[in-house]
């Protein structure tokens, strides 16, 4: 049960200044992992939902959020992990997707792939545009990349490898 009142704007701004350490063009609010910020009896409480179960950046993010709030004047901070609703890349805003692309990471394509066969024998062909040259003549090298949230692609037009933030 959620009690307390919506946190004042400066606390939202402070949390909004915290960037994802692995994707430093997106704030934790752009990513959609901050579910609520409220004040309960002098404590600023932040509800955060994890991206991937094993994402090692989560602990860094929690401590960055705490630091930012303390700098903004919060006397007490509590970062609370919530599991529902479950995070999805669908929560990343159009504006944030554009920043991802400009940074060189292809943004998630379409809606998170929850439909379709549970155990498919053949893959749905998913064309991902190269974030550099915008060519759609690309191929997937691996569905698993440098972090849990990314896949490795290769652009056959400009011959550059690139990362893709997987739709989940």
């Amino acid at each position: 049960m959620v009690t307390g009142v919506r946190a004042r704007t400066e606390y939202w701004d402070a949390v909004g200044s915290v960037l994802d350490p692995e994707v430093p063009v997106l704030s934790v609010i752009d990513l959609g992992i901050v579910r609520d910020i409220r004040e309960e009896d002098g404590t600023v409480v932040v509800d955060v939902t994890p991206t991937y179960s094993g994402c090692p950046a989560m602990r860094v993010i929690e401590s960055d959020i705490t630091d930012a709030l303390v700098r903004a004047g919060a006397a007490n901070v509590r970062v609370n992990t919530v599991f529902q609703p479950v995070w999805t890349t669908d929560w990343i805003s159009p504006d944030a997707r554009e920043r991802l692309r400009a940074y060189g990471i292809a943004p998630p394509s379409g809606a998170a792939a929850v439909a379709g066969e549970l155990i498919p024998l053949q893959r749905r062909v998913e064309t991902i545009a190269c974030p550099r040259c915008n060519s759609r003549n690309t191929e997937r090298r691996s569905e698993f990349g440098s972090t849990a949230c990314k896949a490795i692609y290769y652009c056959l037009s400009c011959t550059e490898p690139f990362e893709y933030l997987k739709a989940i």
Partner: protein
Amino acid sequence: MSLSAYLLRLGDDRLILGHRLSEWCGHGPILEEDIALANIALDLIGQANLLLELAGKEEGQGRTADALAYFREAVEFRNALMMELPRGDFAFTTTRQFLVSVFEVLHLERLQASKHHDLAGMAAKAFKETRYHARHSVDWMLKLGDGTAESHDRAQAALDELWRFTAELFESDDIERQIVAEGIAVDREALRAPWLAEITRVLTAATLKLPDGGFMQRGGREGRHTEHLGHLLAEMQIVARSYPGAEW
């Protein structure tokens, strides 16, 4: 009590399999596969962390996920035996991952409807991750099975070796039946038929032969493990046990 026992089983399956997969780090056959195995290991260990934390909370004796992972003996682990078997060759690791991932996709799909709020949330997250794992392992089963004579033979040998450990995945007991009745856990026995159907479909496409029934090994859920678990734990636990309470 039943709930913490159930959570321990779910957590231990992931912790031990995740550790086995992590052993591939730096040894994968190609760079992309090395990264993929490490990523899947990370997902599993992350899921284990959440589940063991919850198991400790439900147990009510103040044990954290770390305390459960690093300060229990082999006889106290509740993972299915399949998870602890040595990583073997790439075909063995892939085949195990395939058998387990397909099971977990079916299992987690249903566990999302658990009446336990946090468990349902974790299951929903893990379900999405595990679909990636299953797709990845299905791709490899098709490549290995329908590949060269050697890759086919190695995949078939792995399947034949692993088969006797599969029944344990579907084994239930009074502890689980009670929380299945409460709407918290998933009835494993009901997963057997859909699992077999999915497995058969993939193996047929991969030109591999479904092993015949035969003797089935069990005991992991009661803490009767193979000799391999102790060796795994020695490596996994040594730092935490050498420097108890250390932080970095």
